[in-house]
C-alpha cells in the first residue's frame, strides 16, 4: 500500500494529459461550455483508445480490472483539464453500482464505450444522506418520483436508479438539464412517471457514494493543482511596479501556504484509494474539497481583473470546485462523520 504513483499510473496519466492538451485545452472547454459542454469525440477517444471507460470494470466483463488507484490518476488529469467527459459519472459512479449488482451485460457495454450510464442520484447526496434530493418509488415494474441534481444524466443512454437496495435499469425517464452553477458538469432533474424499470441486482448505495467521494478527492486535487500551476505561471509573467507580481513577498507566502495545502491534498487523495476505508474517504473529502475551492479562489484573486472575465477559463475551475464542495457531502458532513469514525465525540 503506497501513496506514490506506480509506473503504470504515470503512463496512464501521460496518455490522458497529452490527449487533453491536444484535443481539448481549457480554452476549448470554455468555448463549448454554454452550448453543449460534453465532448463526445473526446470521450470516444478516451473511452476507447486509452480505455478509461472500462478501467474499473472486471476483466471478465471486458474491462481492465484496474484498481481505484488508476481511476484516481485519470480523475486527477480530468480535473486538471476540466475535461467535459462523463468519466466520473459513468465510469466511476454508475460502473461501481453495476459491479456491485453484478450486471455483466451492461458492464460490457460501458467497458468498450458503446454505452454511457448515469446513476440517478443527486450529486448533493452523500454516504451519510444517500437519499437527498430523491423521491423515487417502485411499484409494479415501474418507477415514479423525481431526483434533482443528477450529474451526467443528460449524456447517458443508460439510466440506473437505486431504490431501497435494488438497482434498476430504467427507460423512458424525463431528463431535464438545468442551468447549473458548474458549466462543465451540468446537473439534470430526472422525473419518472411510471417509467419501465428492469431490476439488475443489489446495490449498496452508501458504499457506492463513499467510493465516489474517495475518488472525487483526486479530481479535486487535479483542479487545485491546475489552479496553483496556472497562478504560479501568471505571477511569474505579470509585472506591476516593474516587478513580477510573484516577487512580492505576501504573494509568495500565500502561494507557499497554498502549495502546502495542495501537497497534502495529493497525499489525502492517494490514501483514499489505497487505504479504501470510510475514514480515508472522509478525510480526503474533508480536506480536498476545501483546498480545491481555496486554490480556485486564490487563483482568481491573484489573477486580478482578468480572472473576473468570462474569457479566462479560470471561472470554470472555480465553478467546478465550488459545486464539487457540495457533491457527495460537504467538508462539514465528512468531518461530522469523522466524529464517530475517528473517535472525536461531540458534546453529550
Amino acid at each position, binding site marked *: 500500500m503506497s501513496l506514490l504513483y506506480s509506473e503504470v499510473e504515470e503512463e496512464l496519466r501521460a496518455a490522458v494529459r497529452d490527449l487533453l492538451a491536444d484535443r481539448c485545452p481549457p480554452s476549448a472547454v470554455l468555448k463549448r461550455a454554454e452550448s453543449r459542454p460534453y465532448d463526445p469525440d473526446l470521450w470516444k477517444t478516451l473511452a476507447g483508445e486509452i480505455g478509461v471507460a472500462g478501467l474499473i470494470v472486471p476483466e471478465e466483463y471486458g474491462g481492465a480490472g484496474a484498481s481505484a488507484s488508476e481511476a484516481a490518476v485519470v480523475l486527477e488529469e480530468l480535473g486538471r483539464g476540466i475535461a467535459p467527459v462523463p468519466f466520473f459519472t459513468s465510469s466511476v459512479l454508475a460502473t461501481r453500482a453495476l459491479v456491485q449488482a453484478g450486471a455483466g451485460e451492461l458492464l460490457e457495454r460501458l467497458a468498450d464505450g458503446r454505452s454511457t450510464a448515469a446513476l440517478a442520484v443527486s450529486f448533493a447526496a452523500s454516504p451519510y444522506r444517500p437519499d437527498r434530493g430523491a423521491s423515487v418509488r417502485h411499484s409494479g415494474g415501474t418507477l415514479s418520483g423525481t431526483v434533482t441534481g443528477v450529474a451526467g444524466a443528460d449524456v447517458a443512454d443508460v439510466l440506473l436508479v437505486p431504490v431501497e437496495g435494488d438497482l434498476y435499469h430504467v427507460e423512458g425517464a424525463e431528463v431535464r438539464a438545468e442551468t447549473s*452553477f458548474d458549466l462543465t458538469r451540468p446537473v439534470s432533474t430526472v422525473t419518472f412517471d411510471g417509467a419501465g424499470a428492469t431490476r439488475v441486482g443489489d446495490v449498496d448505495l452508501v458504499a457506492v457514494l463513499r467510493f465516489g467521494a474517495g475518488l472525487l478527492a483526486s479530481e479535486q486535487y487535479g483542479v487545485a493543482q491546475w489552479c496553483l500551476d496556472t497562478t504560479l505561471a501568471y505571477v511569474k509573467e505579470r509585472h506591476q511596479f*516593474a516587478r513580477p507580481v510573484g516577487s512580492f513577498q505576501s504573494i509568495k507566502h500565500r502561494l507557499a501556504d497554498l502549495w502546502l495545502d495542495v501537497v497534502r491534498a495529493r497525499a489525502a487523495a492517494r490514501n483514499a484509494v489505497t487505504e479504501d476505508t470510510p475514514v480515508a474517504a472522509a478525510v480526503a473529502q474533508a480536506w480536498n474539497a476545501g483546498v480545491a475551492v481555496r486554490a480556485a479562489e486564490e487563483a482568481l484573486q491573484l489573477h486580478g*481583473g482578468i480572472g473576473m472575465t*468570462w474569457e479566462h477559463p479560470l471561472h470554470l475551475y472555480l465553478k467546478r470546485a465550488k459545486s464539487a*464542495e457540495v457533491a457527495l457531502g460537504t467538508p462539514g458532513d465528512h468531518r461530522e462523520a469523522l466524529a464517530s469514525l475517528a473517535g472525536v465525540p461531540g458534546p453529550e
Partner: protein
Amino acid sequence: MDEARLKERVAAFLSENDPAGDRLEFLRARFDAGLAWVWFPEGLGGLGLSRDMQAVVERELAGTPQIDGGVQGIGLGMAAPTILAFGTEEQQRRFLRPLWTGEEIWCQLFSEPGAGSDLATLATRAVRDGDEWVVDGQKVWTSGAHHARWAILVTRTDPGVPKHRGLTYFVCDMQAPGVDVRPLRQITGEAEFNEVFLTGVRLADDLRLGAVGDGWRVAQTTLMNERVAIGGGGGARGGGMVGGVLRSWREHPELRTHDLHQRLLSLWVEAEVTRLSGARLREQLAAGQPGPEGSGMKLSFAKLNQALTGLEMEFLRDLGYDDYAFRRSETVDFYGRGPGYRYLRAKGNSIEGGTSEILRNIISERVLGLPSEPRIDKDVPWKDLPR
C-alpha cells in the same frame, strides 16, 4: 450662512420652482440656486458652505425630483471634485451643470489590461498635434461607458521620464471618432463593465485637466474620492450581506449543521464588529475627526462578503444557477439574484476599486507607518521599465 438662512433660501427656491413641473427644469434651477452641492462655490452649483450643510438641503428637498446616484455616480463622485480642483473656469462652467443634472453622464478611463494595481504604469499614449492631442490605447473595467457623454482619462504623454511624471489628464469626448466601447463579460455571465478602445481619438487641448505631465496628481484627487465612495454605508445589526444569508438560514432549518452554524456565528460576529467600526468611523467624521479606519472598511467588507456568500452556497447545496445569459447590467444586484451570482460577484469586491493587497499596502504604510519596500521603478524612464 447658518442653517436657518439656508432653510429660508431653500424655501425661496421652492416658492419659485414647482417640484411637480418639468424634472430637468427643476434640477437646472436647483443647480443655479446653489443648492446642488452647497460646498461648491457660488455659480458652480454651490454656496461655498461647509459640506455637512448639504444634509439640510437634502432634508428640505426630500420630496422633490432627485438626481440618479447610480448612473451619475462616476460623474458626481469622481469627475466633479477633480474638475473643481483642476479645471479652468471655462471647464467648470461647461461641465459641472449638465454633470449634476444628469444631462451628461460620465465614465472613467483609468485602468488598462497592463496597468491595474500599478495604475501609473499605464500605456495609453496622447501625442500633441497642434491644438489637439491624438490618443491611442485600451482601457478596461469602465462602467457606464456605453451611456457616457464624457470620460475622465489618464494618458501617457512622455514615455521618457519616470512613470509618475509623464502622465496627462483629459476629459475625453466619448462621441469622438475612434472611441469604441465593447461590453466586457464577467464570470457571472453578464457585462457590468466595458473595454474601451481608443484609436486615433483627437481631443482639443482645452479638454486637458491640469498641466501637461501633472496627470498623476490630478488622478490622485479622483482616486481619493473613489476610496471614500466605496467604503460602504451604514445599516442595522444583522443587515447587509449577513442579513441575506440569515434569511436563507432561517428559511431552511432542515439544512442546518453544527459546522455551518458555528461558522455562521463567527461571521455574524465579524459582520457586527465591522458594522460597529463603520458606525464609529461615521461618528468620527461627523465630529470632524476622520480616523484612518476608513481604509480598512472596504477590505473588511470584501472578506466578509466572500466568506458569507461562500457559506451560503455550502448551506443551500444548490447545484443550479439562475442565469448565465450574456447581457448588459447596470448594477450589482446582490439581493435580487441567486446565491451563485452573489458568490461569483462578491469575488470582485477584493479586486475592483483597489485590490485587497493594495489596500493592505496602503494601511501598512500610511496608517501604521511601516517602511515601503525597496522600489525599483521610481527613477527609471517609463519606456525602460520591465513589463
